[in-house]
């Protein structure tokens, strides 16, 4: 009973805020406070949606951006998690590599745009490279920190029960960091989605970032608003997908203690 009202609240409350915001937006536009060239009215943005959709551009751009984020983020997870686990288990490797990983983490991915275009040209590859550079290093550091915070008693228990070193990794270290890993994936996926838009502004001729750039150059604030609404919504949807991982029963301990 109580759960049901909570669920309806989680949808109804944000929806009410959204409706209020759009109403306010509409009122400001009709009262003539802003000129339509500076601030598009809801009706124009709605029409922009139709235009983008009918030309097939919108879905194409969404597809391109999602492909780049999926590949860049996927590669970062595939390489970053094992590297983080290894660094977490080897003090010597940490000593040697952590300062450098931290160095690259501190470099804004946007600083790489020049090299990305020089090395990979314009298109998928350079955007994927930029997303990888933006997500790989923070992910590695999160995994290292998560491994460092595992209570030693878990390893002792595993040792008492005759776990080998491979079992230690797969059946102790990895499940022990899962709650923190999921949180890190959420943060890093958010970064990837922000970066793809920036990367596509200069290094691509398709994708939502390119569409933003194109709308700006074409002096089309209505389309600019369309792209921004789409970018924000997809970002929220991606995060929602990753939040579903926190509902796995064997990771609940990390969130309910």
């Amino acid at each position, binding site marked *: 009973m109580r759960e049901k009202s909570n669920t309806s609240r989680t949808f109804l409350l944000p929806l009410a805020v959204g409706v209020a915001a759009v109403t306010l937006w509409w009122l400001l536009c009709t009262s003539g406070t802003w000129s339509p060239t500076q601030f598009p009215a809801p009706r124009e943005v709605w029409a922009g949606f139709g235009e983008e959709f009918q030309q097939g551009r919108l879905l194409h751009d969404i597809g391109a951006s999602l492909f780049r984020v999926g590949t860049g983020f996927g590669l970062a997870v595939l390489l970053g998690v094992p590297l983080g686990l290894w660094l977490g288990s080897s003090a010597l490797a940490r000593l040697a590599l952590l300062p450098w990983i931290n160095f690259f983490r501190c470099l804004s991915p946007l600083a790489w745009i020049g090299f990305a275009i020089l090395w990979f040209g314009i298109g998928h590859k350079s955007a994927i490279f930029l997303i990888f550079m933006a997500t790989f290093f923070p992910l590695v550091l999160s995994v290292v920190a998560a491994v460092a915070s595992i209570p030693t008693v878990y390893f*002792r*228990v595993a040792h008492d029960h005759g776990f080998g070193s491979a079992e230690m990794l797969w059946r102790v270290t990895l*499940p022990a960091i899962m709650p923190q890993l999921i949180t890190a994936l959420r943060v890093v996926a958010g970064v990837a989605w922000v970066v793809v838009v920036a990367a596509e502004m200069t290094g691509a001729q398709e994708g939502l970032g390119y569409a933003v750039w194109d709308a700006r150059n074409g002096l089309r604030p209505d389309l600019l608003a369309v792209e921004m609404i789409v970018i924000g919504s997809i970002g929220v949807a991606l995060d929602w997908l990753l939040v579903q991982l926190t509902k796995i029963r064997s990771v609940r301990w990390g969130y309910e203690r």
Partner: protein
Amino acid sequence: MSDKPLRLHNVSRSFGEVAVIQGLNLEIGHGEFVAIVGPSGCGKTTLLNLLSGFDKPTAGTVERFGQVRTVYQQGGLLPWLTAAQNISLGLRHIMPKAKQDQQLQDLLNLIRLDGFAHHYPHQLSGGMRQRVEIARALAGDSDILLMDEPFSSLDYLTRLRMRQELARLLALRPRTVVFVTHDIEEAAQLADRVVVLTERPAHIQDTLAIELPRPRNLTDPAVVHATHHILAKLGLED
């Protein structure tokens, strides 16, 4: 099987300059329940680590016959495994699977938690968690239980209940037990023999045998007498 599954001969352990244990001799008999008490920081946990083989002595020898399991002070259950999966860790060498399942069910019945088999540790109370830990340590063919202040994080009443529970379980599944505690009453109520350690570097100050069948009442005159004796040895009672 040896009649002395645990033997420490002239064992010393130091960390750098700091000698934690010095020249300690101790033999523990098969099925015996030995409690180790002493001032805090005197090296009780170091001794347990030496007994379990997790740590090596700087001098002397530690002999161990049989499979050792440790019950930790708190949080020794793996939080991503259910109560049943945690207990099954102790059964993982048992084949075939049907036999393993049967033993798991027996253990769950034994600790009276069969309704909680699929609960995760964070969904259980402190006392229930310790019962699961004990069941895991008793599982399969373990011979020696090392218990490192297993009840110290529980509230007083739960602690008293867990002492009765441990005595009951050991009557059903006898094991050789080394029980480290700072709770003198607990030692007197549970142990066949109480070993009192000195300040660091630890060696044995006194050994007290308590010949009274378990389970014992906390207020049994023999338990009270033993408690007094230990407290006097530690300089806490006249």
